[in-house]
Each structure stands twice: as C-alpha cells, then as structure tokens.
C-alpha cells in the first residue's frame, strides 16, 4: 500500500476518528433503545464524515452529514417515534447471551477473513498518476462531477428513476389501508 508519509497531527486525528467510529458503532449495536442506537449510529456517521474529509473527499464528507446523518437518520428516528418504539422495556430486542456471544465470534471470524484483503499489496501500476499527489484542477467538486456526468451519466440518471420508483413504492405501501 501507499507508503506515503503522514504528519503526526494527521495520523492522530485519523486514528481518533477511526476509533470514534468503531466505538460508536459498537455502542450502536449494543444499545437496547432504538433511539439511543440511532443516535450512536449518527455519531458513527459523523466520525466517518470526518474521515472522509481527511481522505480528501470533502464533498462526500459533507454529503454524509447532510444526506445520511441529516436526512436518512431523521427519517429513521421519525419512524421510531411514529411507531412508538421508543421505550426499551417492551422490546425483547437482543438475542440471548449465547446468541450474542456466537454472533460476536462470527463477527470476529468475518473480520479475520475480510482482513485477508489487506494481505496482498495493491498493484501500483494500476494507480492513476494524476491521483497520487496533484490536487485536481477545478476544485473538489469538479473532480467528482467529471466522472459522474461523463462516465457515470447513465448511473446518475438511473438513480433518479430509482428514487422515483422508491417514492412511489413507499407511498403505495404506507397509504392507509382502505376498508374492505
């Protein structure tokens, strides 16, 4: 992998936010209350947004805060409230002790297997020379806009259809059931 030198300040904050993401995600999966869990997930997303920015993906970082944490999670919370699932008491949400242990174990196994992906070095010949050092001209947005509206124009347009379908679907499903 890249053996680029990073300043200590950068490294510290990178690890800090990394740990925050990890810790808050762990909190997220262990909270009984849906509201608490959602809040910890939001925290995770913030931490990730910070990491995005540190990885030179400022636009994505902003989108993460605005769209994910700001919009999607709000909808989640909204539904939690709507369905009045706020109190943990009436939920037997978590699996039993053994289930959790086993799940933790399986999670570790999965991590172990996924970590294999770090074992072979990436082929540097694949790396675009332009992307290594030189910041793209036209700013951060332009570097994203170019592929999005050229190579991935189709994908972009498709997402609009996707959203349309999703909206319609959501409306159809969530409409009040008509009396029979």
């Amino acid at each position, binding site marked *: 992998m890249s053996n680029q030198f990073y300043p200590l300040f950068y490294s510290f904050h990178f690890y800090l936010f990394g740990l925050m993401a990890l810790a808050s995600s762990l909190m997220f999966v262990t909270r009984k209350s849906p509201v608490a869990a959602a809040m910890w997930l939001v925290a995770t997303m913030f931490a990730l947004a910070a990491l995005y920015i540190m990885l030179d993906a400022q636009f994505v970082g902003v989108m993460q805060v605005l769209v994910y944490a700001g919009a999607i999670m709000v909808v989640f919370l909204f539904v939690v409230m709507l369905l009045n699932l706020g109190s943990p008491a009436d939920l037997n949400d978590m*699996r039993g002790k053994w289930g959790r242990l086993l799940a933790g174990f*399986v999670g570790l*196994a*999965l991590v172990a*297997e*996924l970590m*294999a992906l770090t*074992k*072979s070095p990436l082929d540097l010949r694949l790396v675009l020379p332009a992307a290594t050092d030189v910041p793209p001209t036209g700013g951060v947005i332009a570097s994203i806009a170019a592929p999005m509206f050229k190579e991935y124009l189709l994908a972009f347009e498709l997402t609009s259809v996707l959203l349309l379908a999703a909206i319609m679907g959501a409306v159809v499903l969530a409409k009040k059931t008509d009396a029979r």
Partner: protein
Amino acid sequence: MMTVPTSGTHALASTVAQFVWLLPLLPLIGFLINGTLSLLAVAKLGPDDPSAAGHDAHHDDHGHDHDHGHHAARHKFAGIVSLVGPGVLLLAFALAVAIFVAMRGVEMHEPYLLTLFQWMPVGDLHIDAALQLDPLSMVMVLVITGVGSLIHIFSVGYMQDDPGYPRYFAYLNLFVFFMLLLVLGGNYPLLFVGWEGVGLCSYLLIGFWFSEKANADAGKKAFIVNRIGDFGFLVAMFLLFANVGSLDFAGVAENAGKLPFGGVVITAICLFMFLGCTGKSAQIPLYIWLPDAMAGPTPVSALIHAATMVTAGVYLIARSSLLFSMAPVASLTVAVVGSLTALFAATIGLKQWDIKKVLAYSTVSQLGYMFIGVGVGAYTAGVFHLVTHAFFKALLFLGSGSVIFAMHRAYHATHNHDDAQDMRNMGGLRKYMPVTWTLMWIATLAIAGIPPFAGFFSKDEILGNVFARAHGSMLSEVTWLGVPGGTVLFVVWGLGLASALLTAIYMTRMMLYTFHGPNRSGQAEQGHLAEAPWIMTGPLVVLGIASAAGGWLNLPELIPIGPIGALEKWLEPVVGVATKRIAGTEGHESVSTEQMLIGIAVAIAVVGITIAITRLKPAALVTKKESPASTGFARVLEHKYFVDEGYDAAIIQPTVATSRVVLWKGVDVGLIDGLMVNGSALAARALGWLGSQLQSGQIGTYAWVLLIGVIALLSAFTKYH
C-alpha cells in the same frame, strides 16, 4: 402338415410306414374332437359385460359335482365320444400292426426317419420335427396302441356315468398322442416333447376329479416331481449338445464315440439322463408321486401309471444304450437304484390297504426291475419286462378297477360312503366277480414269476443277466463308489431276488384280502355286488391271454417251446452294439448255472406265495373303520417310511418358508423395497422435513444461515492469496 420324407431311400419309404405320421395324428384328432365336445357340453358363455352383470347370486348352478358315479344320466355326447375315443386308438393300432408287418419284411439296419419340418434351427443347432421308426419304437408303439386300445375300451364302461366323459377321453387321446411322440421322436428334444406331454396328461388325468383337493394335489405333485427329473433330462441334453454337437439319435450315435470312454462327460450325461428317468419312471428318490397318482381314474392308472408312461425311462435308456454302454459307472448306478427301488417299494407294498396303492408300489418295484435290466446292459431284457409288465399290470389295474367299479356301484346303491378301494372293506369277491378273479390270479402269478406266465420269463432274464454280468463283463471290472462292480452286481442280484419274494407275498396278500375270505362290504351291499359289463371284462380277457402268453415273445434257450429270443433278435439293430459292449465276450453262463438260476427264481416265487397263503388270515380282517392304527414297523411301512413327510419337512416346507420369510418378506419387501427404495424415499422426505424445520420463519435464522454461507465461501476464497 407337410411331410418331407428325408429318408426317401430307406426300404420302408415306399411301404405303409410312410404314413407313420398318422400314428400320433390319429389320437390328436381324437383329442381335438373330444376336447371340443367337452367344452361344448359344459360351456355356458358369460354375459357380454361381466363387470356390469355382477354376481347374480340366484345362479343356482351347483350340479357339476364331479364325483364319479353320482350321475345316472349319461353324457349327452357319450355316443360320439365312445366312438371317437377308442376308435382313433384302434385305428392307430391297426396302422401300427400294418407298419410292423411292413417292417418285418425289410432289413432294418438303420432307422426310418421321416422329417416333417424344421423345428428349431438356430446356428449349428438343428432340431427337426422328425419321426423315427425302428424296432425299439415299433415295440413301444405296439404296446401303447395295443394296451391303450384295450384300456380305452374298458374306460367306455368304467367312466360311463361320469359327467366329464368327453374330457376324460380327450385327455386320454392326448396322452396317447404324446406317448407316441415320445417313442417316435427322432431326437432328444422331440422325445422330450412327448416326455413332458405325457407328464402333462398324467397331471390332468390324476387331477381328473379336481374337486377333491387330494386329487388335485396328487396331480400337481406328479408334475412337479417329474419336472425335477426333466431338469436332469434337460441338463443331459445340454451336455450332449455341448460335447457331442447333436441331439439327433443318429447324430449322437455317430459322434458319441468321440467322447472318452467312461469319462466324466459321458457319465454325467448318463447320470443326468437317469435323473430324468427316476422322475418319469418313479425310481428312488423321485418315486413318491406314483402312489399318489392313483387318485386318477383306474384305467388311467393302468395305461399311464403302469403300462406306458412310467416305462418311458426304460425306453429312454434303451434308446440311449450306446451312451450308457460307454459309461459303466452310470450303468451300475442305474442298476443299483433300480434294485433298491424294487426292494424298497416292495416292502411298502406289503402293508398297503388301498388296492390301487398296492399295485402302485408294485409298479414302482417292477420298474426297478426294468432298470436293473437296462442298468446291467440287458436292454432287451428290460424292454421285455416292460412289455410283459404292461400286460399283467394293466390287467391288474383294470381288474382292480372292475372291483372298485363293483364296490362303488354297491356303495352308491346303498348310499354308503365307505372307501371303495380299501381291501379291508372287500373280501370274498370271488363269489361275485369270478371272471375278474380268474384273470387277476393269472396276472398275479405272472408278476410273481410263476412259469409259464409272462412275468416269469422277463424277470428271469433280468436276474440271469445280472448274475452273468456280475462275474465277467465290462461292468464288473469297474468300481462303483469304491466297490468292485462285480460285488455291486451280486448285491443287485440279491436285492432282485428279495424283491421277487416280497412281490409274491404282497400280490398274494392282495388277492387273498380282496377275493377270498368272508365278505366285509356289508349286508346291504352284497346284493349289489356284481361282475362288470362285457365292455370292461372283454379287454380284461385279452390282457389275461397276453399276460399268460407274453413270455413267448422272448423265450430263453433253455425253454425252447417256441421261437427263441424273438425280441432280442428284433431289437438287435438298436441295442445290439451296446449290449455286446457291456456283456463282453464271456457273457454267457453255463447251462447248469442258468438252470440253477431259474430254479431259484421259481422257488422264491413259490415260497412267497406260500408264505402269504399260510401266514395271512383274511377271515381275521375287520373293515377299515374298525381297524386299529397299526404300530411299530408295520406303521412305518403303512406310512411308506414317512418319505413324503420327510421330503415335506426337509425340502418343501423349508423352500416355501425361505421363499416367503427370507426372500419375499425379507429381501424383497424388507431389504430392497423397505430399506433401499422406500427407505431412500423416506430418507429424502425426512431430510426435507428437517430442512423445512430449519425454515423457521425467523429472519434472524435466515441471516445466520446466510452468514455461515458467507464465512464458508470467504474461507474458500481467502486460501488463494
């Protein structure tokens, strides 16, 4: 039928013998006519739609009770059947006589072969439907048609009131057809056709009154036991074809010489063939069917189970004399088995009460004699005894038939349901049926071996030949199961004498109990006892004459009261070579020895009769109902040494039980079906059930399964870096 005489050059070709195919055809026609009539008479065709008709319970048809004698009215086709049935036989006999006359006019160096058509031509196997006429088959044809005619005629009277009258004659005609095929067939397979065919007819006729389970049982038993023998015959044919390459008599005669003399192959052929003979001719160990076969009508017993069919084995060995003469061990086996059977059956005959059973065991015993004859290479003697036995045993059976007929009529008249065949219910019948009495005594003396009746000559010739072969012949020089052949033959001779003694005893016993002493059939019945009608006594008389004079067919040199050795000369072209091969050069005994042998034989017969007359007290007998169960050895004899029971326990029951319990329920239903077929189906279903149990409806479970899949897959993929 296409007739393509292949031996057009044979001397017989231009004579009446070219119509030899008519011989079997005539009874076949009789069978077809009678069979059709039989079905026509009883046929009541069913409704067009049997499933719709259902069971109309008011169908009050229970009149077909086939117990003979219960129907006074004669069969509606009785006339035509009485004409056709015996008629075809008489015609056949006439033709046979004509052919016989023709044969006497020519030199018979080789048989006359008439190929009708190719039967089974496959590759190098050529089996033709060919008839072969030679002296041996001529003798048989004459006996079959001759005795057969008499028995047919007798049957007209005996079966007159039976509702199955046409069926009876159909079967009987069919039997004669097959029997003629047997003796006329020009190759082993064709002989086998007749062989099985007569077995089939025997089956049908034994079970003629099939509504009695015992009769049906007896028929079935006869067929199956015969089949065991046929198995042997079949294997013998396979061996012949594989080693000799032909199944024609001619071809075998030509090529059999190539087989090593006395070798395993020829011995095996002969032994397997003899296995066939033990079945058909009721020898140890397959004799058991014959006594049961007495369940059939008595004329059937006379024709099939005394005169003709059961002697087919003797015929077969005589026919295959060339082969047997090359297999001394096999020949000795034949003789030993024959002698053992003769004695064994005779002992059983001592204690039987059923008149027909006595005769049945007597037949078994006499057949044993014949096998002794052909076993020691005295083929002519064997055949001679066959012929004489046909006469006197047919007479005995018909005579007993006439007795049973009388008894039955008497019982029927008085509505008595006693056993009409049990000698304990008879006694003193001489008074009522004098003709029968006389003729039966003639036959008894003949079978006992009292000169000058027929049996004396034939039996003496056999015993004489045994004695002669015992010291100085091919047979005496080999060892049989480690015993020198000579010794074996002496034993055989001794056994033969012993059974001759017993024969005299049990025959006399039968005569005494039946005809002498006081009558035990009951007061009321005595009035109804009477001699049978002429149509039955007529054939008896003819047979009586034959029994008395049959000996003249083959007189020994010592008794030159007629043509010496006529039969021997007649059969010389067929069995001569084999006889000479076995007998060797030093075959003949001195005159004094022969005289001594004759003396011994006669003495033994006389002693036997005397013992019987002195020791047995007909007056002391009580009827069957009142008789106590016998004990001790008598009981063993009465139950025929429990051989049937033994077979049943040792072979039949285990086979059936194994088939049912192990093979069917165990292997088929249990192992293959249960475990493999249904088992695998069940296993699949059980697995399916398990799978559907895992499908719990819980998303969590599904996610778990999915994840396990993920981990498994990833572990497979991560091993490649």
